[in-house]
């Protein structure tokens, strides 16, 4: 079992994306910070509400050199349909085999029907070091969009050498 605490390194998940193509977290990151969300799945009304919030903030992420990644146990084709319905432009990763779920302390546990991920959020440096972790088992525990903004600001400030405008 991996501890997912601030300062530790998040595992470099290797999973198919919503189109079925193999991806890794580090490949998606490139050199950018990540907001990584684990999600119960398309069927949960709380997830539907939260994903719509993410779609609102994606317009900021897409111009600010940062990535949004959502992991769930939905199959890629289900994620693709969910993503299209939301109007999301970020990446979904499918752990439909629950290969990583079995290794991470992120199983919901109380839902024996769907056996899904517990809602959680992690903000990651490009090397996948965790800056902050949010437990979203209760809806109010989830990272708000403002908290994600503040997290991206903190990480970006640290990793971009020209955060302070270089002298010309």
């Amino acid at each position, binding site marked *: 079992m991996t501890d997912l605490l601030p300062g530790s390194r998040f595992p470099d998940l290797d999973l198919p994306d919503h189109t079925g193509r193999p991806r890794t977290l580090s490949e*998606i990151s490139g050199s950018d910070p990540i907001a990584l969300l684990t999600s119960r799945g398309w069927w949960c009304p709380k997830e539907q509400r939260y994903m719509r919030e993410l779609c609102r903030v994606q317009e900021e992420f897409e111009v600010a050199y940062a990535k949004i990644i959502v992991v769930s146990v939905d199959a890629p084709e289900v994620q*693709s349909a969910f993503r299209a319905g939301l109007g999301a432009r970020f990446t979904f990763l499918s752990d439909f085999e629950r290969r990583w779920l079995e290794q991470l302390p992120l199983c919901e546990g109380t839902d024996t029907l769907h056996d899904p991920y517990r809602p959680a959020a992690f903000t990651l440096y490009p090397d996948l070091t965790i800056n902050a972790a949010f437990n979203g088992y209760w809806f109010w525990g989830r990272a708000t969009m403002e908290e994600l903004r503040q997290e991206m600001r903190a990480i970006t400030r640290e990793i971009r050498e020209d955060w302070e405008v270089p002298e010309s």
Partner: protein
Amino acid sequence: MSPELPFAYIRFDGERLSDDPHGPGRRLRIDARCVAGEGVQGAHAHVCALSNEDASLRYDEPEVQQARRDALDWWIPMLGDDLVCISTFALDESRCAGAVTVTTDPRRLDYDPFARLFPGTTVRADFFSRVPPPPGPVIERYSGAPWPAGSFGS
């Protein structure tokens, strides 16, 4: 040692596409990964660009940004496994000369969102290699690189 450039050069003369950087036609920057691996034989390249040297838009223009959003939103998912690679064409730090989408099946190329920027021409090409499509939602570019190429590390 200097880092590898995130772009390569290809040429387009309005009808033909060439990976010879010294060949005839307009010289365009393309994501270097698109021409770095083994070529997919008989692929169809939908070139949304003109051979006219003046035909360009700024990457920051809303129509260019929206074409990239559409690529992430529905164009890449629509192409599915037929997609070989996709790249915009950069001219320099700020100007976009269009884009190319390479597929193994030409039937859906009429939907190409980049054709809203410049008219599309479908050509056969054997030199494009498979590149994982860009993960969203980033639409901004890294300096001088043709989206989706590059990173702050390159």
